[in-house]
């Protein structure tokens, strides 16, 4: 079963990371899910694949009412991101799925109806959550051609999807990056291969440099916090991506 860890809390405004399932089969990639709570409502970020639904559900429901999940934010269309959609909709059929317009007719293959989806424009959009204004930030071609991240200005947290992801070995399962230089080795191959555009990467680095970010939360691996956030952005800015080998 996965565990939950609160990474930000300010009254009824809360970020919970749902991470690390020791029972997860090796053949499934490990993923991080995040729940943003505000005013009694929840937004689930990249809820994960259907195979890990039981682990995510049991962890999440131990501290939050799943029927209060007002929406899902899907950074892109991959199965490890959102193939569990139909299962979450069982708890709240009115739940909305915010996703790039590009995938609006693809993701329904995972579940949902026409009115389930809120298409996000390429330039991003505000996603309201019980009075909280969350900002969908463009991250196209990183790695998906329709890709968005989610920024919470109040919490100063950027959910960065696959950007910042690291494929960590079993002995390095900490939730936060502890030693940037040793951690980033586990991120390098992933970013070189999965991130397809140097130009898109440059634009993203420029864009997020203007945001105040205390935590950069990827969908795989560990969370960057404090000075490691800017370290990561600088490192990524200099990395040559879109190549088969380094």
């Amino acid at each position: 079963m996965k565990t939950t860890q609160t990474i930000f809390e300010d009254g009824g405004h809360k970020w919970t990371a749902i991470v690390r399932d020791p029972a997860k089969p090796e053949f499934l990639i490990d993923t991080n899910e995040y729940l943003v709570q505000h005013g009694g409502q929840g937004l689930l970020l990249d809820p994960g694949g259907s195979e890990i639904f039981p682990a995510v559900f049991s962890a999440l429901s131990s501290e939050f009412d799943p029927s209060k999940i007002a929406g899902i934010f899907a950074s892109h269309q991959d199965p490890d991101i959102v193939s569990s959609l139909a299962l979450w909709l069982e708890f709240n059929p009115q739940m909305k799925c915010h996703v790039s317009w590009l995938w609006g007719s693809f993701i329904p293959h995972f579940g949902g109806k026409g009115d389930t989806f809120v298409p996000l424009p390429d330039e991003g959009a505000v996603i309201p959550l019980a009075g909280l204004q969350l900002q969908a930030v463009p991250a196209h071609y990183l790695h998906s051609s329709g890709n968005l991240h989610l920024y919470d200005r109040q919490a100063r947290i950027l959910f960065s999807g696959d950007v910042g992801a690291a494929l960590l070995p079993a002995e390095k399962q900490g939730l936060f990056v502890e030693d940037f230089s040793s951690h980033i080795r586990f991120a390098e191959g992933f970013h070189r291969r999965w991130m397809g555009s140097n130009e898109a990467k440059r634009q993203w680095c420029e864009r997020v440099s203007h945001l105040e970010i205390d935590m950069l939360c990827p969908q795989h691996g560990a969370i960057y916090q404090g000075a490691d956030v800017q370290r990561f952005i600088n490192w990524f800015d200099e990395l040559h991506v879109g190549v088969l080998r380094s």
Partner: protein
Amino acid sequence: MTAEENTSEWQGGDEAFVPVATESSSGAALDLLRIVRINEEIKRVVSVAFKINIMALNAIFLAKRAGNAALGFGVLSNELRVFSKDLREGMMALTRQIHDLVAEVSVILQESRYDRVFAEAARAAPDHAQLQTVLERREARHGERADRIASLRRGLRLAIDDAARLVELGGVLAKSAKIEAAYGAGFASSLGQVSGEFDGIVEEIRSSLDSLRRSGFFGGSA
């Protein structure tokens, strides 16, 4: 297939509702395989029925050349063309029913995967009230789907029986054509050959429909 066989089952009196692994997935997969086989047989019948249409057209021309001696044969050939058309239409209706069945059975296959995931979630979060509600709602939907499949299955069987009755009429027409061929004077031999072919083809269709009626999908052994 009953609703119980189809999806999941209740576990014990006051205990929480937990879907357990059943044969639903493999049962649906087997049904899908049987439906595919039925569809292939239907396609074969449609193809053979079209052959009757062409043969009957040629037989009408032959009867025209034979003149008065083959008037009866000409009428029967025309009836065989009508039979061919009716049979093809009947088979097309079967194909539509097959399409509906494939759609329902495919949903069962997909849902059985979700049933397994929910069963795992129920083990990980036992006695979770909302999860129980979801499971009960799903169970009700499974029951409704099982009823729809049972109804489609009955409809398909009835349609195959109708087609079989139509083929009996085709058999009578083919045999009558054989008799009429004997009165074909100088054309008797040619007409006899054509009517024999009609008879053979109708037998082929009858055999196909018999195998459909014996399909395991309807509880038979084939």
